[in-house]
């Protein structure tokens, strides 16, 4: 258990509304990631963070922004939600240090539906 929680776990919202998903970790990991998972696409990286206030884009970053003001929290914001952003969103942390090889550990996910 990597001590990762996501909130909310489920959300239904309407097109055009802003949405913020939260990822919280308790083990002081430097790297955190946001993915979306859709049928036939596996996991696709949205944004990631390599430290407080240090973030970078992934392969599907359009329409999403992130913030990391403290180590334990990584927020994903949909500024104006669209139906194409209906998905399951996963947060992950990455293990670093001796004996680690980029392993990532995932939270339980947030199911977002945009009507």
């Amino acid at each position, binding site marked *: 258990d990597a001590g990762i929680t996501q909130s909310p776990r489920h959300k239904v919202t309407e097109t055009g509304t802003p949405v913020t998903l939260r990822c919280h970790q308790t083990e002081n990991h430097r790297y955190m*990631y946001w993915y979306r998972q859709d049928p036939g696409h596996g*996991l696709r990286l949205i944004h990631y963070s390599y430290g407080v206030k240090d973030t970078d884009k992934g392969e599907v970053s359009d329409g999403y922004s992130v913030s990391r003001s403290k180590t334990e929290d990584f927020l994903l914001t949909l500024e104006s939600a669209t139906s194409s952003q209906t998905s399951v969103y*996963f947060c992950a942390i*990455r293990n670093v240090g001796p004996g680690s*090889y*980029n392993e990532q550990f995932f939270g339980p*996910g947030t199911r977002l539906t945009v009507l």
Partner: protein
Amino acid sequence: TQLLEQSPQFLSIQEGENLTVYCNSSSVFSSLQWYRQEPGEGPVLLVTVVTGGEVKKLKRLTFQFGDARKDSSLHITAAQPGDTGLYLCAGAAMGAQKLVFGQGTRLTINP
């Protein structure tokens, strides 16, 4: 852009049968991981392979990393209904901060 192609995408077999899932790329990876995901949960790490030709066993699951570190396979012997799930491979290039994921193999083991 690095890509990982998994095959098959779907596999449904009877309990007790053997199966192999493949993960292929034209790119070289410094490490490759296999994850298993059950409905409503996040992926869970099964194994990491890092050396070309490496074989790792986890009970009835055998993982192999290709000699050139471009591909990997997962073999399950005498599959059980508890093996049902989505299996994902993911690779990391040397020095990369990100993983590249395959599309996943949805495995169903029927009693």
